[in-house]
Protein backbone atom coordinates (compact mmCIF):
# COMPACT_ATOMS: atom_id res chain seq x y z
CA UNK A 1 0.00 0.00 0.00
CA UNK A 2 1.43 3.40 -0.92
CA UNK A 3 1.81 6.04 1.79
CA UNK A 4 -0.97 8.01 0.16
CA UNK A 5 -3.40 5.06 0.06
CA UNK A 6 -2.52 4.27 3.66
CA UNK A 7 -3.24 7.87 4.65
CA UNK A 8 -6.54 8.00 2.76
CA UNK A 9 -7.65 4.74 4.37
CA UNK A 10 -6.71 6.00 7.82
CA UNK A 11 -8.42 9.32 7.16
CA UNK A 12 -11.68 7.59 6.34
CA UNK A 13 -11.45 5.19 9.27
CA UNK A 14 -10.23 7.52 12.04
CA UNK A 15 -11.07 11.09 11.03
CA UNK A 16 -14.14 11.23 13.25
CA UNK A 17 -12.35 9.71 16.23
CA UNK A 18 -9.54 12.25 15.97
CA UNK A 19 -12.01 15.13 15.59
CA UNK A 20 -14.02 13.95 18.61
CA UNK A 21 -10.94 13.66 20.77
CA UNK A 22 -9.65 17.14 19.91
CA UNK A 23 -13.13 18.52 20.56
CA UNK A 24 -13.29 16.81 23.95
CA UNK A 25 -9.90 18.27 24.84
CA UNK A 26 -11.61 21.64 24.61
CA UNK A 27 -10.95 22.94 21.11
CA UNK A 28 -13.66 24.73 19.13
CA UNK A 29 -15.19 22.73 16.25
CA UNK A 30 -13.41 25.01 13.81
CA UNK A 31 -10.06 24.47 15.44
CA UNK A 32 -10.69 20.76 15.93
CA UNK A 33 -11.22 20.39 12.22
CA UNK A 34 -7.94 22.16 11.43
CA UNK A 35 -6.04 20.03 13.94
CA UNK A 36 -7.58 16.85 12.53
CA UNK A 37 -6.45 17.77 9.04
CA UNK A 38 -2.93 18.46 10.28
CA UNK A 39 -2.79 15.14 12.14
CA UNK A 40 -3.32 13.21 8.91
CA UNK A 41 -0.74 15.23 7.01
CA UNK A 42 1.74 14.39 9.80
CA UNK A 43 0.70 10.77 9.40
CA UNK A 44 1.38 10.92 5.68
CA UNK A 45 4.82 12.44 6.24
CA UNK A 46 5.71 9.71 8.73
CA UNK A 47 4.52 6.85 6.56
CA UNK A 48 6.30 8.32 3.56
CA UNK A 49 9.45 8.51 5.70
CA UNK A 50 9.23 4.75 6.34
CA UNK A 51 8.16 5.15 9.96
CA UNK A 52 6.64 1.92 11.25
CA UNK A 53 3.30 2.70 12.82
CA UNK A 54 1.78 -0.31 14.52
CA UNK A 55 -1.23 1.07 16.30
CA UNK A 56 -2.58 3.59 13.87
CA UNK A 57 -5.43 4.88 15.98
CA UNK A 58 -3.25 5.32 19.05
CA UNK A 59 -0.57 7.04 16.96
CA UNK A 60 -3.10 9.44 15.43
CA UNK A 61 -4.61 10.29 18.79
CA UNK A 62 -1.18 10.87 20.30
CA UNK A 63 -0.31 13.38 17.58
CA UNK A 64 -3.75 14.95 17.94
CA UNK A 65 -3.26 15.24 21.68
CA UNK A 66 0.13 16.90 21.30
CA UNK A 67 -0.90 19.25 18.51
CA UNK A 68 -3.91 20.37 20.53
CA UNK A 69 -1.80 21.11 23.57
CA UNK A 70 0.71 22.99 21.44
CA UNK A 71 -2.16 25.02 20.07
CA UNK A 72 -3.43 25.88 23.54
CA UNK A 73 0.03 26.83 24.73
CA UNK A 74 0.64 29.02 21.67
CA UNK A 75 -2.85 30.57 21.69
CA UNK A 76 -2.56 31.38 25.34
CA UNK A 77 0.82 32.99 24.98
CA UNK A 78 -0.44 35.19 22.16
CA UNK A 79 -3.77 36.18 23.68
CA UNK A 80 -3.06 36.70 27.35
CA UNK A 81 0.61 36.08 28.02
CA UNK A 82 -0.48 34.13 31.11
CA UNK A 83 1.82 31.39 32.37
CA UNK A 84 -0.71 28.61 32.83
CA UNK A 85 -2.73 28.15 29.66
CA UNK A 86 -6.39 27.33 29.70
CA UNK A 87 -9.23 27.14 27.28
CA UNK A 88 -9.98 30.70 26.15
CA UNK A 89 -13.01 31.87 28.10
CA UNK A 90 -14.67 33.33 25.01
CA UNK A 91 -14.92 29.81 23.65
CA UNK A 92 -17.23 27.70 25.86
CA UNK A 93 -16.28 24.05 25.61
CA UNK A 94 -18.65 21.68 23.84
CA UNK A 95 -19.44 19.94 27.09
CA UNK A 96 -20.28 23.19 28.82
CA UNK A 97 -22.73 24.00 26.04
CA UNK A 98 -24.43 20.63 26.30
CA UNK A 99 -24.35 20.58 30.05
CA UNK A 100 -26.36 23.80 30.19
CA UNK A 101 -29.28 21.64 29.18
CA UNK A 102 -28.20 18.62 31.15
CA UNK A 103 -30.90 17.14 33.36
CA UNK A 104 -28.45 15.44 35.62
CA UNK A 105 -26.85 18.13 37.73
CA UNK A 106 -24.82 15.47 39.49
CA UNK A 107 -23.29 14.14 36.31
CA UNK A 108 -22.61 17.70 35.25
CA UNK A 109 -20.66 18.39 38.42
CA UNK A 110 -18.83 15.08 38.28
CA UNK A 111 -17.61 15.60 34.73
CA UNK A 112 -16.42 19.09 35.53
CA UNK A 113 -14.59 17.74 38.57
CA UNK A 114 -12.61 15.20 36.57
CA UNK A 115 -8.94 16.00 36.23
CA UNK A 116 -7.67 16.55 32.69
CA UNK A 117 -5.89 13.21 32.76
CA UNK A 118 -8.94 11.35 34.06
CA UNK A 119 -11.00 12.90 31.32
CA UNK A 120 -8.48 12.11 28.62
CA UNK A 121 -8.23 8.49 29.79
CA UNK A 122 -12.01 8.09 29.86
CA UNK A 123 -12.41 9.61 26.42
CA UNK A 124 -9.73 7.43 24.91
CA UNK A 125 -11.30 4.38 26.56
CA UNK A 126 -14.63 5.31 25.00
CA UNK A 127 -12.73 5.40 21.68
CA UNK A 128 -11.95 1.74 22.30
CA UNK A 129 -8.26 2.01 23.16
CA UNK A 130 -6.66 -0.55 25.47
CA UNK A 131 -4.85 0.68 28.58
CA UNK A 132 -1.45 0.21 26.94
CA UNK A 133 -2.55 2.28 23.96
CA UNK A 134 -3.91 5.03 26.18
CA UNK A 135 -0.58 5.03 28.00
CA UNK A 136 1.21 5.50 24.67
CA UNK A 137 -1.08 8.36 23.63
CA UNK A 138 -0.65 10.27 26.88
CA UNK A 139 3.00 9.37 27.45
CA UNK A 140 2.29 7.90 30.89
CA UNK A 141 2.61 4.40 32.33
CA UNK A 142 -0.06 1.72 32.03
CA UNK A 143 -0.63 1.53 35.80
CA UNK A 144 -1.20 5.31 35.78
CA UNK A 145 -3.89 4.85 33.15
CA UNK A 146 -5.60 2.27 35.36
CA UNK A 147 -5.42 4.60 38.32
CA UNK A 148 -6.84 7.58 36.40
CA UNK A 149 -9.69 5.44 35.10
CA UNK A 150 -10.43 3.92 38.47
CA UNK A 151 -10.71 7.34 40.08
CA UNK A 152 -12.67 8.81 37.20
CA UNK A 153 -15.22 6.00 37.24
CA UNK A 154 -15.51 6.22 41.00
CA UNK A 155 -16.29 9.97 40.77
CA UNK A 156 -18.97 9.40 38.14
CA UNK A 157 -20.47 6.50 40.06
CA UNK A 158 -20.67 8.42 43.31
CA UNK A 159 -22.24 11.37 41.52
CA UNK A 160 -24.95 9.20 40.00
CA UNK A 161 -25.68 7.55 43.33
CA UNK A 162 -26.49 10.91 44.96
Amino acid at each position, binding site marked *: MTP*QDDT*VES*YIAFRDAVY*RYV*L*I*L*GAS*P*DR*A*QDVTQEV*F*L*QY*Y*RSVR*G*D*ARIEQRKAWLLRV*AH*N*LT*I*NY*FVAADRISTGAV*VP*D*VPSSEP*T*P*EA*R*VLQNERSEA*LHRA*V*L*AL*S*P*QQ*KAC*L*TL*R*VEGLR*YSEIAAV*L*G*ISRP*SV*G*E*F*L*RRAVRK*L*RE*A*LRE
Partner: protein
Amino acid sequence: VNEANRTGHLGDDDIVFFLDGELPSHEAERVRKHLSACWACRTAAAETEAAVLEFVRLQERVLASERPPRPWKDINAEIAALEAREQTSGSGAGRSWFRRFSPAWGACALAIAALSVVPERRPAVLNEAPRSESPLKPGDSAVQPLGGVPAPGIRAPEMRAQPGPMEELRVVEILHEIGADLGEPVEVVRERERIAVRGHGLTGQRREIIVAALAGLPFVKTEFPGAQSALNAAGGTGPPPVETDPAHQDRRTTAEIDRSNEIVDLSDSLMARVSAVRNLDVRFAGPPALPPDGQLRIATIQENHLREARKTWAQLKSVLERANWTNLGPGPRELALPDAVVEFDRLVNFLFAPSENGAAADPAAIMRLRQLIGLLDEALGQR
Protein backbone atom coordinates in the same frame (compact mmCIF):
# COMPACT_ATOMS: atom_id res chain seq x y z
CA VAL B 1 -2.13 -5.08 47.70
CA ASN B 2 -5.56 -4.10 46.44
CA GLU B 3 -8.66 -3.10 48.26
CA ALA B 4 -10.15 -6.56 48.02
CA ASN B 5 -7.51 -7.97 50.31
CA ARG B 6 -8.34 -5.47 53.03
CA THR B 7 -12.14 -5.50 53.01
CA GLY B 8 -13.07 -8.90 51.66
CA HIS B 9 -14.87 -7.17 48.78
CA LEU B 10 -13.64 -6.21 45.35
CA GLY B 11 -11.96 -2.85 44.96
CA ASP B 12 -12.83 -0.23 42.35
CA ASP B 13 -9.67 -1.23 40.54
CA ASP B 14 -10.73 -4.89 40.38
CA ILE B 15 -14.14 -3.98 39.03
CA VAL B 16 -12.99 -1.41 36.48
CA PHE B 17 -10.07 -3.50 35.21
CA PHE B 18 -12.26 -6.63 35.09
CA LEU B 19 -15.00 -4.91 33.09
CA ASP B 20 -12.32 -3.50 30.76
CA GLY B 21 -10.79 -6.93 30.23
CA GLU B 22 -7.43 -5.69 31.50
CA LEU B 23 -6.90 -8.26 34.26
CA PRO B 24 -4.63 -11.25 33.77
CA SER B 25 -6.70 -14.43 33.39
CA HIS B 26 -6.18 -15.84 36.89
CA GLU B 27 -7.13 -12.47 38.41
CA ALA B 28 -10.15 -12.21 36.15
CA GLU B 29 -11.23 -15.67 37.31
CA ARG B 30 -10.96 -14.63 40.95
CA VAL B 31 -13.09 -11.50 40.29
CA ARG B 32 -15.66 -13.50 38.30
CA LYS B 33 -16.07 -15.99 41.15
CA HIS B 34 -16.40 -13.24 43.72
CA LEU B 35 -19.01 -11.38 41.65
CA SER B 36 -21.13 -14.49 41.28
CA ALA B 37 -21.16 -14.89 45.06
CA CYS B 38 -21.37 -11.28 46.29
CA TRP B 39 -24.42 -9.04 45.83
CA ALA B 40 -22.64 -5.93 47.12
CA CYS B 41 -19.89 -6.20 44.56
CA ARG B 42 -22.31 -7.06 41.79
CA THR B 43 -24.21 -3.88 42.62
CA ALA B 44 -20.95 -1.93 42.53
CA ALA B 45 -20.14 -3.44 39.13
CA ALA B 46 -23.60 -2.55 37.82
CA GLU B 47 -23.20 1.02 39.09
CA THR B 48 -19.84 1.20 37.36
CA GLU B 49 -21.38 0.08 34.09
CA ALA B 50 -24.16 2.64 34.55
CA ALA B 51 -21.64 5.43 35.20
CA VAL B 52 -19.67 4.51 32.08
CA LEU B 53 -22.90 4.40 30.09
CA GLU B 54 -23.87 7.89 31.29
CA PHE B 55 -20.47 9.24 30.32
CA VAL B 56 -20.64 7.68 26.87
CA ARG B 57 -24.14 9.12 26.35
CA LEU B 58 -22.95 12.53 27.47
CA GLN B 59 -20.14 12.40 24.94
CA GLU B 60 -22.54 11.34 22.23
CA ARG B 61 -24.73 14.34 22.99
CA VAL B 62 -21.70 16.61 22.98
CA LEU B 63 -20.59 15.33 19.63
CA ALA B 64 -24.06 15.39 18.10
CA SER B 65 -24.23 19.09 18.85
CA GLU B 66 -20.75 19.81 17.53
CA ARG B 67 -20.67 18.68 13.94
CA PRO B 68 -17.67 19.83 11.90
CA PRO B 69 -18.51 23.34 10.68
CA ARG B 70 -17.12 22.82 7.18
CA PRO B 71 -17.10 19.86 4.79
CA TRP B 72 -13.97 17.75 5.22
CA LYS B 73 -11.18 18.57 2.83
CA ASP B 74 -10.12 16.08 0.18
CA ILE B 75 -7.08 14.42 1.70
CA ASN B 76 -5.63 13.54 -1.72
CA ALA B 77 -5.62 17.22 -2.66
CA GLU B 78 -4.04 18.10 0.69
CA ILE B 79 -1.27 15.57 0.14
CA ALA B 80 -0.65 16.89 -3.38
CA ALA B 81 -0.41 20.42 -1.98
CA LEU B 82 2.01 19.22 0.70
CA GLU B 83 4.21 17.55 -1.90
CA ALA B 84 4.16 20.68 -4.04
CA ARG B 85 5.21 22.86 -1.10
CA GLU B 86 8.07 20.52 -0.30
CA GLN B 87 9.23 20.33 -3.90
CA THR B 88 9.71 24.07 -3.98
CA SER B 89 11.47 24.14 -0.60
CA GLY B 90 13.87 21.47 -1.83
CA SER B 91 13.66 18.79 0.85
CA GLY B 92 12.84 15.13 0.59
CA ALA B 93 15.28 13.99 -2.07
CA GLY B 94 15.63 10.23 -2.05
CA ARG B 95 18.81 9.72 -0.13
CA SER B 96 20.11 7.15 2.28
CA TRP B 97 19.60 8.15 5.91
CA PHE B 98 22.33 6.02 7.30
CA ARG B 99 25.55 6.77 5.58
CA ARG B 100 28.91 5.54 6.62
CA PHE B 101 30.61 8.11 8.79
CA SER B 102 34.06 9.01 7.61
CA PRO B 103 36.55 9.23 10.49
CA ALA B 104 36.67 13.01 10.37
CA TRP B 105 32.89 13.24 10.34
CA GLY B 106 32.63 10.74 13.17
CA ALA B 107 35.01 12.76 15.29
CA CYS B 108 33.13 15.94 14.46
CA ALA B 109 29.82 14.32 15.38
CA LEU B 110 31.25 13.03 18.64
CA ALA B 111 32.57 16.48 19.47
CA ILE B 112 29.14 17.98 18.83
CA ALA B 113 27.48 15.24 20.86
CA ALA B 114 29.88 15.88 23.73
CA LEU B 115 29.22 19.61 23.56
CA SER B 116 25.49 19.09 23.57
CA VAL B 117 25.35 17.20 26.83
CA VAL B 118 24.84 19.74 29.58
CA PRO B 119 26.13 23.26 29.80
CA GLU B 120 23.28 24.93 27.96
CA ARG B 121 20.71 23.20 30.11
CA ARG B 122 21.91 24.57 33.39
CA PRO B 123 20.10 27.91 33.27
CA ALA B 124 16.84 26.17 32.44
CA VAL B 125 17.20 23.83 35.39
CA LEU B 126 18.07 26.66 37.76
CA ASN B 127 15.13 28.67 36.53
CA GLU B 128 12.78 25.91 37.55
CA ALA B 129 13.64 26.06 41.20
CA PRO B 130 11.27 28.91 42.16
CA ARG B 131 8.45 27.17 40.33
CA SER B 132 8.47 24.21 42.67
CA GLU B 133 5.69 25.80 44.73
CA SER B 134 3.37 25.68 41.77
CA PRO B 135 0.76 22.92 41.92
CA LEU B 136 1.95 21.86 38.49
CA LYS B 137 5.44 20.67 39.20
CA PRO B 138 7.58 19.82 36.20
CA GLY B 139 7.98 16.13 35.62
CA ASP B 140 5.07 15.04 37.75
CA SER B 141 2.53 14.64 35.03
CA ALA B 142 1.77 10.99 35.67
CA VAL B 143 1.50 11.32 39.42
CA GLN B 144 0.64 14.75 40.68
CA PRO B 145 -2.90 15.35 39.46
CA LEU B 146 -4.32 12.19 41.03
CA GLY B 147 -5.18 13.61 44.39
CA GLY B 148 -4.62 17.14 43.27
CA VAL B 149 -6.86 20.12 42.87
CA PRO B 150 -9.80 19.33 40.59
CA ALA B 151 -9.61 21.22 37.36
CA PRO B 152 -11.99 24.18 37.38
CA GLY B 153 -13.11 23.52 33.84
CA ILE B 154 -12.31 21.29 30.96
CA ARG B 155 -8.70 21.64 30.13
CA ALA B 156 -6.33 19.83 27.85
CA PRO B 157 -4.38 17.30 29.91
CA GLU B 158 -0.83 17.79 31.04
CA MET B 159 -0.64 21.37 29.99
CA ARG B 160 2.19 23.30 31.52
CA ALA B 161 3.84 26.49 30.47
CA GLN B 162 7.31 25.04 30.80
CA PRO B 163 8.77 21.74 29.70
CA GLY B 164 10.08 19.45 32.42
CA PRO B 165 12.48 16.52 32.43
CA MET B 166 9.69 14.06 31.57
CA GLU B 167 8.95 15.97 28.35
CA GLU B 168 12.66 16.01 27.64
CA LEU B 169 12.82 12.27 28.31
CA ARG B 170 10.02 11.66 25.80
CA VAL B 171 12.02 13.52 23.12
CA VAL B 172 15.16 11.55 23.96
CA GLU B 173 13.20 8.28 23.80
CA ILE B 174 11.80 9.09 20.39
CA LEU B 175 15.20 10.10 19.02
CA HIS B 176 16.49 6.80 20.39
CA GLU B 177 13.74 4.92 18.54
CA ILE B 178 14.86 6.39 15.22
CA GLY B 179 18.55 5.92 16.03
CA ALA B 180 19.26 9.65 16.25
CA ASP B 181 21.16 9.33 19.53
CA LEU B 182 24.24 7.63 18.14
CA GLY B 183 26.67 10.44 17.60
CA GLU B 184 24.61 11.94 14.83
CA PRO B 185 24.92 15.72 15.17
CA VAL B 186 21.51 16.14 16.79
CA GLU B 187 21.34 18.00 20.08
CA VAL B 188 18.49 18.33 22.53
CA VAL B 189 18.43 21.35 24.80
CA ARG B 190 15.67 21.96 27.29
CA GLU B 191 15.25 25.67 27.53
CA ARG B 192 12.92 27.74 29.62
CA GLU B 193 9.81 27.42 27.48
CA ARG B 194 10.65 24.80 24.92
CA ILE B 195 12.77 21.81 24.05
CA ALA B 196 15.02 22.69 21.15
CA VAL B 197 16.08 19.81 18.90
CA ARG B 198 18.83 20.96 16.57
CA GLY B 199 20.27 18.90 13.75
CA HIS B 200 23.44 20.04 12.08
CA GLY B 201 24.21 19.26 8.45
CA LEU B 202 21.58 16.52 8.05
CA THR B 203 20.13 15.45 4.72
CA GLY B 204 16.66 16.61 3.81
CA GLN B 205 15.21 13.15 4.29
CA ARG B 206 16.82 12.66 7.67
CA ARG B 207 15.47 16.03 8.77
CA GLU B 208 12.03 14.92 7.66
CA ILE B 209 12.26 11.67 9.65
CA ILE B 210 13.17 13.60 12.78
CA VAL B 211 10.41 16.16 12.29
CA ALA B 212 7.81 13.44 11.71
CA ALA B 213 8.93 11.40 14.70
CA LEU B 214 8.65 14.41 16.99
CA ALA B 215 5.42 15.56 15.38
CA GLY B 216 3.31 17.54 17.76
CA LEU B 217 5.16 16.71 20.98
CA PRO B 218 4.50 19.54 23.39
CA PHE B 219 7.15 22.28 23.60
CA VAL B 220 9.35 20.74 20.92
CA LYS B 221 10.93 22.99 18.34
CA THR B 222 13.12 21.46 15.66
CA GLU B 223 15.85 23.53 14.05
CA PHE B 224 18.33 22.70 11.37
CA PRO B 225 20.90 25.47 11.39
CA GLY B 226 22.76 25.81 8.10
CA ALA B 227 20.49 23.28 6.40
CA GLN B 228 21.08 24.98 3.09
CA SER B 229 24.78 25.45 3.75
CA ALA B 230 27.66 24.52 1.49
CA LEU B 231 27.79 21.12 3.19
CA ASN B 232 24.59 19.97 1.53
CA ALA B 233 24.79 22.17 -1.52
CA ALA B 234 28.19 20.78 -2.44
CA GLY B 235 27.80 17.03 -2.13
CA GLY B 236 24.12 16.75 -1.52
CA THR B 237 24.63 13.76 0.77
CA GLY B 238 25.86 15.30 3.99
CA PRO B 239 29.48 15.49 5.02
CA PRO B 240 32.16 15.98 2.44
CA PRO B 241 34.52 13.06 1.88
CA VAL B 242 37.79 13.13 3.75
CA GLU B 243 40.45 14.58 1.58
CA THR B 244 42.95 11.95 0.71
CA ASP B 245 46.35 12.61 -0.72
CA PRO B 246 47.28 9.84 -3.14
CA ALA B 247 50.89 10.00 -1.97
CA HIS B 248 49.77 8.99 1.55
CA GLN B 249 47.30 6.37 0.43
CA ASP B 250 50.04 4.51 -1.37
CA ARG B 251 51.69 3.55 1.89
CA ARG B 252 48.97 1.09 2.85
CA THR B 253 47.65 -1.98 1.10
CA THR B 254 43.99 -2.30 0.20
CA ALA B 255 43.57 -4.92 2.93
CA GLU B 256 45.07 -2.59 5.51
CA ILE B 257 42.81 0.24 4.46
CA ASP B 258 39.77 -2.03 4.59
CA ARG B 259 40.71 -3.23 8.05
CA SER B 260 41.31 0.32 9.22
CA ASN B 261 37.94 1.38 7.89
CA GLU B 262 36.30 -1.53 9.62
CA ILE B 263 37.96 -0.67 12.91
CA VAL B 264 37.03 2.97 12.58
CA ASP B 265 33.41 2.12 11.81
CA LEU B 266 33.15 -0.34 14.67
CA SER B 267 34.85 1.97 17.14
CA ASP B 268 32.66 4.88 16.04
CA SER B 269 29.65 2.71 16.62
CA LEU B 270 30.93 1.46 19.96
CA MET B 271 31.86 4.95 21.11
CA ALA B 272 28.48 6.26 20.08
CA ARG B 273 26.77 3.62 22.24
CA VAL B 274 29.03 4.20 25.23
CA SER B 275 28.64 7.98 24.91
CA ALA B 276 24.88 7.63 24.63
CA VAL B 277 24.75 5.69 27.91
CA ARG B 278 26.92 8.25 29.66
CA ASN B 279 25.05 11.21 28.15
CA LEU B 280 21.77 9.90 29.55
CA ASP B 281 23.25 9.76 33.04
CA VAL B 282 24.54 13.31 32.77
CA ARG B 283 21.48 14.72 31.05
CA PHE B 284 19.01 13.50 33.66
CA ALA B 285 21.23 13.87 36.71
CA GLY B 286 18.81 16.59 37.85
CA PRO B 287 17.69 18.51 39.75
CA PRO B 288 14.81 17.99 39.59
CA ALA B 289 15.07 14.23 39.96
CA LEU B 290 13.03 12.11 37.61
CA PRO B 291 10.20 10.02 39.07
CA PRO B 292 10.87 6.25 39.25
CA ASP B 293 8.90 5.72 36.05
CA GLY B 294 11.27 8.07 34.22
CA GLN B 295 14.33 6.43 35.69
CA LEU B 296 13.10 3.06 34.54
CA ARG B 297 12.62 4.37 31.02
CA ILE B 298 16.16 5.73 30.97
CA ALA B 299 17.51 2.41 32.20
CA THR B 300 15.66 0.69 29.34
CA ILE B 301 17.32 2.92 26.74
CA GLN B 302 20.71 2.38 28.34
CA GLU B 303 20.20 -1.35 28.34
CA ASN B 304 19.42 -1.22 24.60
CA HIS B 305 22.62 0.70 23.97
CA LEU B 306 24.73 -1.66 26.05
CA ARG B 307 23.30 -4.72 24.37
CA GLU B 308 24.26 -3.29 20.98
CA ALA B 309 27.61 -2.11 22.33
CA ARG B 310 28.45 -5.63 23.50
CA LYS B 311 27.78 -6.98 20.01
CA THR B 312 29.86 -4.27 18.36
CA TRP B 313 32.57 -4.75 20.91
CA ALA B 314 32.77 -8.48 20.17
CA GLN B 315 33.19 -7.67 16.47
CA LEU B 316 35.80 -5.01 17.13
CA LYS B 317 37.77 -7.26 19.42
CA SER B 318 37.76 -10.00 16.82
CA VAL B 319 39.07 -7.57 14.18
CA LEU B 320 41.73 -6.30 16.54
CA GLU B 321 42.74 -9.85 17.40
CA ARG B 322 42.99 -10.79 13.76
CA ALA B 323 45.31 -7.82 13.47
CA ASN B 324 47.61 -9.79 15.76
CA TRP B 325 47.93 -7.19 18.50
CA THR B 326 47.00 -9.52 21.29
CA ASN B 327 50.62 -10.14 22.23
CA LEU B 328 50.96 -6.59 23.51
CA GLY B 329 49.43 -7.60 26.82
CA PRO B 330 47.29 -5.59 29.20
CA GLY B 331 48.64 -2.40 30.72
CA PRO B 332 47.83 -0.39 33.85
CA ARG B 333 44.16 0.51 34.13
CA GLU B 334 44.23 3.79 35.93
CA LEU B 335 41.98 5.87 33.70
CA ALA B 336 38.37 6.66 34.47
CA LEU B 337 35.90 5.53 31.83
CA PRO B 338 34.96 8.93 30.39
CA ASP B 339 38.64 9.81 29.91
CA ALA B 340 39.15 6.45 28.26
CA VAL B 341 36.29 7.11 25.86
CA VAL B 342 37.75 10.44 24.79
CA GLU B 343 41.28 9.15 24.51
CA PHE B 344 40.21 6.03 22.69
CA ASP B 345 38.51 8.12 20.07
CA ARG B 346 41.54 10.37 19.70
CA LEU B 347 43.83 7.38 19.40
CA VAL B 348 41.70 5.60 16.86
CA ASN B 349 41.64 8.69 14.70
CA PHE B 350 45.36 9.15 15.17
CA LEU B 351 46.21 5.55 14.40
CA PHE B 352 44.09 5.08 11.34
CA ALA B 353 44.19 8.43 9.63
CA PRO B 354 46.37 8.38 6.52
CA SER B 355 49.58 9.90 7.68
CA GLU B 356 52.95 10.58 6.19
CA ASN B 357 55.00 9.20 9.05
CA GLY B 358 52.99 5.99 9.32
CA ALA B 359 51.40 6.50 12.72
CA ALA B 360 49.65 3.13 12.41
CA ALA B 361 52.94 1.51 13.26
CA ASP B 362 53.50 3.51 16.48
CA PRO B 363 53.85 0.80 19.17
CA ALA B 364 53.27 3.18 22.07
CA ALA B 365 49.98 4.28 20.58
CA ILE B 366 48.92 0.70 19.92
CA MET B 367 49.83 -0.23 23.49
CA ARG B 368 47.74 2.62 24.81
CA LEU B 369 44.85 1.55 22.63
CA ARG B 370 45.05 -1.92 24.10
CA GLN B 371 44.84 -0.50 27.61
CA LEU B 372 41.86 1.60 26.72
CA ILE B 373 40.13 -1.31 25.06
CA GLY B 374 40.71 -3.32 28.21
CA LEU B 375 39.14 -0.55 30.26
CA LEU B 376 36.16 -0.34 27.96
CA ASP B 377 35.79 -4.09 27.98
CA GLU B 378 35.72 -4.07 31.77
CA ALA B 379 33.32 -1.20 31.83
CA LEU B 380 30.98 -2.95 29.42
CA GLY B 381 31.27 -6.17 31.33
CA GLN B 382 30.23 -4.45 34.55
CA ARG B 383 26.99 -2.98 33.31
